[in-house]
């Protein structure tokens, strides 16, 4: 919990994990064919964009409440995919933002998406809407936005807290198709009850690989799988060792405790 520095065990573990991920990325880049199973929630993204286009109503993509950090940058990856689709089909994409620094990042990412589709003049910077850095002021603003702009589809990706259900219910109220995913695990139940498609757990971090089919990202995904297998194996071995646990006097357990630390 209050680990200040890594010990040798942590260092070795991290070297193994990082090497695994980097190696799978490199082999994937060299052209190894990789398989990724179907992830229903992610397959729905393209379809959701298509429906908004048919209805001729705008889409809304929220990247959550985070600043420039890992979960939010992953949401940005999905956002730029959706932005490219929006640019291709000539649709509007409204991006409510809750962090001042993210205004700049979102502005950049959307502009790039429109540029890549060859329509830089169609990019509307005024659709990047900073609402508020305060949790519930942001929620109020976004609820109003969803209902007033009559958005046809909403995407809720990124780090959300208690406001998750407010945002999703506003979309539900206005009849939008909603796709949501968050690494904040305790908020997932609220997305499940009020969104059409929910991306659960680390499907969230698989999203950009799945959507772009970029070899680098697919390779990374395979590396993640191997890493999870390593962690799983460690837990299994640890649990088997724990069969020999005698109160807290067993040297094996003590050794384990000392190496794993924490």
């Amino acid at each position, binding site marked *: 919990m209050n680990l200040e520095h890594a010990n040798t065990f942590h260092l070795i573990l991290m070297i193994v994990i990082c090497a695994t991920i980097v190696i799978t990325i490199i082999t994937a880049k060299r052209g190894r064919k990789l398989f990724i199973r179907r992830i229903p929630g992610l397959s729905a993204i393209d379809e959701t964009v298509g429906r908004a286009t048919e209805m001729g109503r705008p889409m809304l993509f929220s990247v959550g409440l985070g600043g420039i950090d890992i979960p939010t940058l992953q949401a940005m990856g999905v956002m730029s995919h959706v932005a490219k689709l929006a640019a291709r089909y000539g649709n509007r994409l409204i991006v409510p933002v809750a962090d001042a620094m993210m205004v*700049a990042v979102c502005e*950049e990412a959307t502009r790039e998406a429109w540029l890549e589709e060859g329509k830089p003049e169609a990019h509307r910077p005024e659709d990047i809407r900073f609402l508020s850095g305060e949790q519930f002021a942001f929620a109020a603003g976004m609820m*109003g936005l969803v209902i007033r702009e009559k958005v046809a589809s909403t995407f809720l990706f990124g780090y959300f807290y208690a406001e998750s259900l407010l945002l999703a219910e506003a979309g539900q109220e206005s009849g939008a198709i909603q796709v949501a995913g968050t690494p904040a695990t305790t908020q997932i139940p609220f997305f499940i009850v009020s969104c059409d498609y929910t991306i659960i757990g680390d499907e969230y971090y698989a999203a950009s690989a799945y959507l772009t089919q970029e070899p680098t990202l697919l390779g990374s995904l395979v590396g993640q799988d191997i890493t999870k297998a390593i962690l799983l194996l460690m837990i299994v071995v640890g649990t088997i060792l724990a069969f020999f646990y005698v109160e807290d006097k067993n040297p094996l357990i003590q050794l384990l405790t000392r190496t794993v630390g924490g």
Partner: protein
Amino acid sequence: MNHPDAWVIWIGVICTLAVYSILYRENPVFRFFEHVYIGLAAGYGIFTTVTQVLVPQWGIPLFKEGKWSWIFSMLIGVMFYFVYSKRHVWIARWAMALFIGTGAGLGIAGFVTEFVPQMKASIKPIWHAPWTLNTFSFNNLLMFITLITVMSYFFFSIEHKRPVLKGSAQTGRWLLMIAFGAIFGNTVMARVSLFIDRMQFLLFEWLKFHQPY
């Protein structure tokens, strides 16, 4: 706030009712108060940023204590504003890159600090010496099964068709749904309690109803 002024209560009541009006439908009153709310929050953001960050953490070290190197944190901050310039947008990107890099570095360190203790906590004896009925823990067995099966559901690079993995992933999904249901139920208490709070404010502080308890 033990004896708030009458008009503070009235402001509170108007704000409360305006927000609850969205329960009927989006309406001009809600819209007005939504804008007021965002305005107040923005103003409060300016206020806290100045009083808690810019003055004590930057202004005082720089101007009062003469630590001149703090000027650079302002210069880096200003770089973000180049996002509005098409030609110089790379300057903003440069500043963003610094934040992305630190975010990544913290992410790598954070993995160890967050998950190694959790891994240790997941290793629990299911049945330990002297291996009698008393030392067998059904709960620990169940926790172990939940952990394994749920993790197996999240393997992406293998098709969930092989019998063992299929069974495990399916079990994992069911257990995950139980977990989500329980979390939903657990959150109800906290949210309802917040609403009771508001209701007490409206009934007793504003309408001055007699408190029966």
